[in-house]
């Protein structure tokens, strides 16, 4: 076959261009650690990588949601635990206020109950940032307002929150709440912390009643009415503490699951878009060798051409 001079040089240039392009692609893969950078590199792979990226981003956000909820749940849990202590103290006072107690002791107990009401109201106005934890979704202002008389005795504790709670997503399509309304006497919906007619709970009113009965020295009313009421309140608060604990456990499990899912996703992402470094470096080395060989062959050809010209007289 007859070979023209331009045939060889054109072929040589094409081969060098091809090898250069291969070198560039392989070097790019080695430096980035990626087999896919642009959509045209691997269109189906790119789509899969984008979908995995979206899933991973969502999982990271769910983890953030869970972290925020865990903080709020911890704040609420601490308040509920302290509230439980107050409830226990109130029950002890009610138990000890029998016919053997002196008027002075009863008065002192009344004063202590007044302080317990104030402490409980303060706990029920706990905030997480700017949000009041026990106001339902009307969380922009303090849900419990204490009213006192001229002597400092508590006459009323009114609730200005509502009975709704906000749900947050902790995984796709799965929502939960860490909130509980301060009061719910509607007969439906989430259980109120302080007051819920379904369970006989009305902690503040029961404490006010105990305060008043202690001041009046009405030990029979304390034994027959106040003490049983406070037992219902205590049971309700214990439920809230347990419920909060269960929610925190669930959030921990959700966080762990999200973390496991993310590890799997990252493995999938590496499989789709990552590069086998050993294999790629080997290919790069082979390409470099081929490029060197092509250059040397070209050089020899050009020398041969010069030799041909030297044959001219």
């Amino acid at each position, binding site marked *: 076959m007859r070979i*023209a001079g331009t045939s060889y040089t*054109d072929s040589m240039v094409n081969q060098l261009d091809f090898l250069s392009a291969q070198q560039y692609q392989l070097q790019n893969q080695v430096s980035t650690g990626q087999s896919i950078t642009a*959509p045209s*590199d691997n269109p189906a792979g790119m789509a899969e990588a*984008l979908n995995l990226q979206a899933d991973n981003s969502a999982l990271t956000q769910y983890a953030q949601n869970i972290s925020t909820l865990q903080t709020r749940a911890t704040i609420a849990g601490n308040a509920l635990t302290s509230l439980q202590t107050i409830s226990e103290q109130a029950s002890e006072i009610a138990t000890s206020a029998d016919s053997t107690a002196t008027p002075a002791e009863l008065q002192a107990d009344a004063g202590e109950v007044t302080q317990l009401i104030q402490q409980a109201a303060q706990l029920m106005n706990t905030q997480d940032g700017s949000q009041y934890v026990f106001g339902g979704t009307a969380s922009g202002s303090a849900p419990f307002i204490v009213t006192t008389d001229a002597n400092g005795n508590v006459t009323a504790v009114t609730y200005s929150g509502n009975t709704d709670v*906000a749900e947050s997503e902790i995984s796709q399509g799965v929502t939960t709440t860490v909130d509980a309304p301060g009061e719910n006497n509607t007969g439906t919906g989430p259980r109120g912390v302080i007051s819920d007619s379904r369970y006989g709970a009305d902690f503040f009113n029961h404490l006010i009643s105990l305060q008043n009965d202690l001041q009046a020295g009405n030990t029979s009313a304390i034994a027959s009415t106040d003490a049983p009421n406070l037992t219902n309140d205590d049971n309700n608060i214990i439920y809230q503490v347990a419920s909060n604990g269960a929610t925190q456990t669930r959030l921990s499990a959700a966080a762990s699951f999200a973390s496991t899912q993310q590890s799997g996703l990252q493995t999938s992402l590496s499989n789709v878009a990552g590069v086998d470094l050993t294999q790629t470096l080997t290919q790069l080395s082979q390409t470099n060798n081929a490029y060197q060989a092509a250059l040397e062959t070209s050089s020899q050809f050009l020398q041969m051409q010069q030799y*041909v010209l030297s044959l001219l007289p």
Partner: protein
Amino acid sequence: MLGLFNTLNLGARALQAEQIGVEVTGQNLANANNPAYSRQTVVLQTSTPTPTSIGMEGTGVEAASIRQVTDQLLNSQIQSEASVGGYWNSQQSALQNAQTQLDEFFNLDSASSTSSDGSTTTSQSLSDQLNSLFNAFQSVATSPTDLTARQSLVNAAQSLASSFNQASQNLSALNNQLNTSVSTGVASANQLLSDIASLNGQIAKATASGATANDLMDSREQDLENLSQLVNIQTTTNSDNTISVSIGGQQLVSGSNLSDTLATYDPGNGQLLVQTATSATPLALTGGSIQGTIDARDGTLTTLRNNLDTMASSLITQVNGIYSNGYDLNGNTGANFFTGTNAGDIAVNSNLVNDPSQVQAAGTANATGDNSVALQLAQLGNQSIAALNNETFSGAYALDVQNFGDALSNANDQVSNYSSVNTMLLNQRDSESGVSLEEETSNLITYQMAYESSSKIITTVDQMLQTLIDMKST
């Protein structure tokens, strides 16, 4: 018998013939690197013999013609392949440009990051911005009264809107560039058609006068190949060695006459197409870079732009449909989150930019802790959207990217295939018509030796003549 003087003429003719051989070889060597050149050879033939008493006696050699070594079938194949190459190269160029403008390049590090806020704000790609928007809705749903989360939402939405605007603007600019490219291609094609007609005229004159026009034919062949890269042509060789050229069934060059040219026209949508200039006949081009540019512009690029507009439009409609029913921290309702109608003009409600408390996250008035609207908006990211073929926003976008990538990947493969076929055809033509240094060097030596040999005839006859003259003088 020829006689001494006729023998002298024989020597002289031989010298001329070998000199022409050297000249043609020199021409070949001078054009060794000219890809448009077809090598030439000297056709030597014995000159007319003369009758003598002892029979017909040869009178030497003469150069009968200078022949161009070319294969018209191969040339036609190369022209045809040039149209294919022009078509796919222009597609590849346009779509590579579009890929750059879309700016959707995958980064494994940011894709697999576990940044604490769930956003990948270091990346500006549209896919990342979409993810960040729905993550930001999640953050507001989890902390509805948190002004920092609300401001982050507004920022994320602005970044997304900006990405849409930028992609739309860039692709629109590319569309305009491709329109310009069509016009430029048409102008170049018209210039080539004019050149071909002119060369046809010169070749016809040379042919009529009995001369050869090899170099003019090489120039015309180059013009035909360059024209084929722009647009698929059909050629007919005429008896006077002129070539008629048709495009899309319309004859534009007939002999030396340029009967018509190409022109662009707007069919009403701003996307230029091609027609004949004089008869205004729309042309259905079947190959070449002009049609490749048109197909890229009206095909893949238009689909991509329409899909971006559909996605932006769906996002605006879906988000506003939920959002407008929400309440902000001040109890206000009814406003929209996004303004605009498509990718080019989507924007965030300007009232939210400086006052994130106006984000309507609650589903109930006077309940600032209510997050039901924000939660719905966050969950919108996982919902199938009818206008997006029942895909989620991110899923639909991933499909759009895949389809675009498929088009560019196909163009890359076609260019690679064309390159292989074209190289094979060019090598085949070069093996026939190309200049071989070894061959020409050998020819040069051959002609030179023959010239030297022929010069010996002259010097020998000269000596013989001198001998004769000396005989007279003595």
